[in-house]
């Protein structure tokens, strides 16, 4: 029942903000109210979930009876954590979207809330095609956010993103149709028994189709070429949605669909995917070091981080999956924070070029401190949220293959290099344009950044609260995989 609420609140919110949000203020207040309401409902339900009633997020109703498809939703610990990420980030993203003079703001906020609706659907779908339905539908609102409110090249980048992801999703659809025909059901739980009995060759093909779809979404090397452009040319809100939430659909899909539906192939592919992940990790980090555009830099760093998550999931150990799940949350929060800082800097200075920025900390000390905290989270400093996930995943990758583990470890150093360079070139150094008066963050901006940096620290100090929620799900998944 609570799940239905979590789905309906953003949907109704989207409709409401479309209908009554003729001006920016009312559309925004509808969006804030709706996203906070979702958060409230989620917190209440999550409290029940962690205290033992794990059925709280389950919901099932016949949907397409003639084809045997159901509106079936269910959530394990991993889904609940991703729901948490969605419920926390969407209000922050809405709050951060305070632009004056935006055209058609009712459509804008309604698209943001609609994205939330599809994300909740993806993270809790218990039916193969329901998952696909939301997975692909999530792209549509973001596409329109980008082409309508993005920069000059936005239509082109958005289109590239759309073609890439649709291509992957369609391959996944073919694989799903095949599974569905073989198993005569689309229920994810019931399909496991069919999937486990498939010949290894077939499973290899299925996994191949799934991994391409999810690799494009994450993105994983070499399917990442849409990502820097899309992140850079999108409006800040769409970038936050993409990097903070939509990219997690890829990793989640690996855990929820690819591993259970092609268990035999997971081991076979683990090496290839891990290698690609590590190549992407190093490649993304090196390119990030050379970037001049702040948004591009964060985009490449985001791409580098996503690779490690895929490697962690496929490492076949509890630490790997746990680390990937934790890192999904951490990276979601950090990416939103970093892109928000990039937007704040751009709003104040009119540029995102590192060579033209500098000395912001003199005029905006609060911004500088909050930026530092979020940035350290991204660098994976101990006691910040980035550390726990990276550490667990590196441990898992190291156990998987020592050499790869060592190379992956390098990425932490590289991460520190590009992140600290970002900080140094923006906050310290000479003021390039002495005429420019940079106001410090106040009001809403400060609130959002304080909340994000607060989460960065709390997650870093008390990781066990989160790890405990996802552990049973990770153990169940691995037990299932090893039982094949």
């Amino acid at each position, binding site marked *: 029942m609570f799940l239905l609420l979590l789905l309906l609140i953003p949907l109704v919110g989207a409709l409401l903000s479309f209908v009554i949000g003729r001006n920016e203020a009312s559309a925004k207040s509808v969006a804030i109210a709706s996203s906070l309401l979702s958060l409230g409902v989620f917190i209440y339900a999550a409290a029940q979930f962690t205290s033992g009633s794990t059925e709280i997020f389950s919901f099932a109703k016949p949907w397409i009876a003639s084809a045997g498809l159901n509106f079936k939703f269910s959530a394990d610990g991993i889904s609940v954590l991703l729901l948490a990420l969605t419920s926390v980030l969407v209000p922050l993203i809405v709050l951060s979207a305070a632009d004056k003079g935006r055209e058609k703001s009712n459509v804008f906020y309604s698209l943001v809330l609609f994205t939330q609706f599809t994300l909740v659907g993806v993270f809790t779908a218990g039916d193969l095609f329901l998952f696909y339905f939301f997975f692909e539908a999530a792209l549509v609102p973001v596409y329109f956010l980008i082409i*309508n409110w993005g920069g000059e090249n936005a239509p082109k980048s958005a289109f590239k993103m759309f073609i890439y992801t649709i291509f992957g999703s369609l391959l996944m659809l073919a694989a799903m149709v095949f599974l*569905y*025909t073989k198993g005569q059901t689309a229920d994810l739980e019931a399909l496991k028994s069919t999937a486990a009995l498939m010949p290894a060759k077939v499973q290899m093909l299925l996994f191949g189709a799934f991994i391409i779809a999810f690799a494009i979404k994450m993105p994983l090397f070499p399917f990442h070429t849409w990502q820097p452009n899309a992140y850079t040319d999108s409006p800040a809100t769409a970038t936050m949605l993409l990097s903070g939430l939509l990219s997690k659909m890829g990793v989640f899909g690996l855990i929820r669909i690819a591993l259970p539906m092609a268990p035999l192939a997971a081991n076979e592919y683990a090496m290839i995917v891990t290698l690609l992940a590590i190549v992407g990790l190093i490649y993304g980090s090196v390119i990030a070091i050379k970037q001049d555009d702040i948004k591009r830099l964060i985009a490449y760093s985001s791409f580098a981080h996503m690779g490690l998550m895929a490697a962690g999931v496929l490492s076949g150990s509890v630490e790997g999956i746990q680390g990937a799940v934790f890192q999904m949350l951490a990276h979601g929060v950090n990416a939103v924070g970093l892109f928000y800082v990039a937007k704040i800097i751009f709003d104040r200075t009119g540029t995102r070029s590192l060579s033209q920025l500098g000395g912001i900390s003199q005029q905006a000390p609060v911004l500088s401190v909050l930026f530092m905290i979020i940035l350290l989270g991204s660098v994976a400093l101990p006691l910040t949220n980035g550390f726990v996930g990276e550490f667990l995943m590196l441990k898992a990758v190291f156990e998987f293959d020592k050499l790869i583990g060592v190379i992956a470890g390098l990425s932490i150093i590289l991460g520190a290099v590009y992140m600290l360079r970002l900080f140094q070139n923006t906050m310290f150094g000479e003021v390039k344009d002495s005429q420019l008066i940079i106001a410090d963050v106040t009001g809403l901006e400060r609130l959002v950044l304080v909340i994000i940096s607060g989460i960065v620290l709390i997650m870093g100090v008390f990781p066990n609260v989160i790890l405990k929620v996802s552990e049973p799900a990770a153990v169940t998944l691995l037990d299932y995989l090893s039982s094949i």
Partner: protein
Amino acid sequence: MYPIISLSITGLLTLFLGFADNKKLVFPLSILFLLLALGLSFVDWNAPGYYFNGMLAVNNESIAFWAIVIVTAILVLSLSEGFDRIEFSQPAEYLAIAQFSLVGAIMMVSYNNLIMLFLGIEILSVAMYVLTGADKRNLRGNEAAIKYFLMGAFATGILLFGIAMFYGATGSFNLDSVSDLMQEGSADALFLWIGCTFMLIGMLFKVSAAPFHLWTPDVYEGAPTIFTAFMSTIVKTAGFVALFKILSSAFNGLGEVWAIMFAVVVLLSLVIGNLGALSQSSFKRLMAYSSISHAGFMLLALLGDHNNALSTILFYSLAYTLATISAFGVLLVVSKERTENGRAYEKIDLFRGLIKENGFLTAVLTISMLSLSGIPLTAGFWGKFFVFSNASGSDFFWLIIVAVLMSAVAIYYYFKPIKEAFDRSGELSTIKINSIFKIIFGITTLGTIVLGIFPDLIRSIF
């Protein structure tokens, strides 16, 4: 059966209405006539049976298709506002011909005898030849009509030849007795195969499947937009049902002959339709190639399990019809304001900047394009899904892979109009839409989305 009679009579009446002094009555009365036919269709609901000595078979499935065809006609013809325009200098004639064409369509979806199939196809086709050339002063329209007529007549000839061969092999025109004969396997095989092949060629031509598609782009482009919409929806739907009926009864047991042929046709339609659409700059030509590719998809559904094929075709053609009416409707509204050399300007870049001028039309166009490309939340997605799940049981899973890859290609060209519409650099003159258009667009767009979320609404009819 009743709609056939009523449409024949009201069609004649409409012709005579053309002599009346007050021509304004013709249009509302024609819509009324169509509504009457729609109402009469349901007289036979839940009362399956045969008419005219077993020439026509009526059951709930065929009634559902009658209803779809008639409702489509109502929706499409309602878009024909402004009879003062050139192509509508004789509104009574065109409306009468449209009603006659429906008689043909209805015969095609409920024939039980090959003679009836031929009659239905001929009635529908001759009407379409005339409507294609409805705009008498338009050279391209005339050229299209001649092309369509010559090639169409040829295709019908082949179809008739096929029917004759088939008769030679089995000694009957009746679908039921033919399928009994096939079960016994006592028919002359060579005649049967040639007849089967020729009949399929004739019918595949009508649904514009490759390699019998060459007329499609020219005819779509040349015909007045409203009749392009008419053609791409009604003719297609009727054609596919006719194909299904013959495949599932008379050709039952000939699977090894037509299935391979069909697989090749599906492959060609998907590849030619989608790759051909990529480079089009005219919106109507784009829709023509898209209709070829959709023909490929619907044929794919026929390859699989026959028990579900009919409801898949019903759903797919409904989804396709709704989206196509929206697309051509928006084209009609927008292109009216823009002319080039005295003709409506119908390039894709016509839509540039539509978002600034009219958000509603942009939404209608966008949703129709999304549905055609099969994005979830629209009916088109489920159309594709049902086709895939229908065909996945057959020996042709590789065709599904081709179809999937081609769907990815299709995104590219379906997004062209969307990108243009959201391109704010364009300047459009003021667009006025009257309330009938708004209602029609409301129905098609809402229908697309509702079917996109609850596809079972339609599938549960059977």
